[in-house]
């Protein structure tokens, strides 16, 4: 895996796991790979993988069964969408705004593009 330079590695691992849950590769109440397995397959320090698991557990996306491993929480998808939406408004959008100001792009132009994009998709 090629890691980006602007986001902590453990959060990039979280994103990867979120992706697997959103696409349905990991299903509700199913066991996911262990910290050790995931750490090894991504070739990162096990502590980094552990931090990603701790974050997901704290955010109620996965839960631990003692002696069994980690499982996907019911409603994990809903929780992930909520978290990623927060991140979008906190990090992605301000970056886009910054570029808009820099390039003098009007919001109406964006709305126009957005509408035609939506039409293309449907």
């Amino acid at each position, binding site marked *: 895996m090629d890691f980006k330079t602007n986001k*902590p590695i453990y959060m990039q691992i979280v994103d990867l796991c979120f992706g697997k849950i959103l696409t349905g590769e990991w299903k509700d109440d199913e066991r996911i790979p262990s910290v050790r397995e995931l750490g090894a397959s991504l070739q990162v320090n096990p502590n980094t993988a552990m931090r990603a698991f701790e974050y997901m557990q704290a955010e109620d996306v996965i839960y631990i069964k003692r002696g069994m491993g980690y499982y996907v929480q019911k409603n994990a998808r809903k929780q992930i969408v909520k978290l990623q939406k927060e991140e979008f408004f906190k990090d992605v959008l301000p970056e886009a705004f910054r570029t808009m100001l820099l390039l003098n792009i009007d919001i109406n132009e964006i709305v126009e593009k957005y509408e035609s994009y939506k039409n293309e998709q449907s």
Partner: protein
Amino acid sequence: MIQISNLSFYYKKSAPIFEGVTLQIKSGIYGLLGENGVGKTSLLHIISGLRFPKSGSCNVCGYESYKRKPGMLSQLFFLPEEFNTPSESISTYAKLNGVFYPNFKQSELDEYLDIFQVDRQKKMTQMSFGQKKKAMIAFAIAANTPVLLLDEPTNGLDIPSKSQFRKIISSVSTSDKSIVISTHQVRDLENLIDPIIILDRNQVLLNNTVEEITQKLHFTYSATKPQDSLYCEQILQGYSAVSENVDNEESILNIESLFSAVVLNKEKIKNIFNN
């Protein structure tokens, strides 16, 4: 697991390598970094009992390392950067040497040799440098010693082997193992090593976990040149810089920048980390 106290060492009295060095190594995958000639290999030699402290002590698993007690030697494996092997296959080598390591596992050795695609019947003296190195890395890891010292393990490894090496090291690291990897190839091991030790002439500049480092220092990438940075370098995307993490921001460690920042600001870095 390794406690070095007030260690002094020199080859020539006029050119000391270590002066009053104190260093503790616990469990984890330690990255041992330092410029050429600062004494990385000498330190590994002292830990493994191959060289003796001129003063001070080096305690490994409860033993003074210079005494080379069997109790310590069975708990430690040191793989030098370059080495000569006996004229035998890795299978024979393991049969004869595995007995010295109480936790040595033949099944693990077989697994790692398969992953590295090493011929287990071929005499190691007839192998290429890389093949020989992979055979001995496989043995070193399969010995399952609480202390594992690897001097430049990725030198000579081909591209797929480096990635296999990272996978294996990540999978065997446990809370009762100290793995110390001395290296210049930080890009090979960037996301693997934690904590990080940076050696300088005579002293230890840094011995901290990645979490501690990113709490104290902030690694940034920006289009404009940042003010008051400890280290700044022009890259394709703009500037890669290291500064003191005053606003407690989260960032991702760049070992190469860290190294330059530490070497260029020795005193300042010490102050930042001692506060």
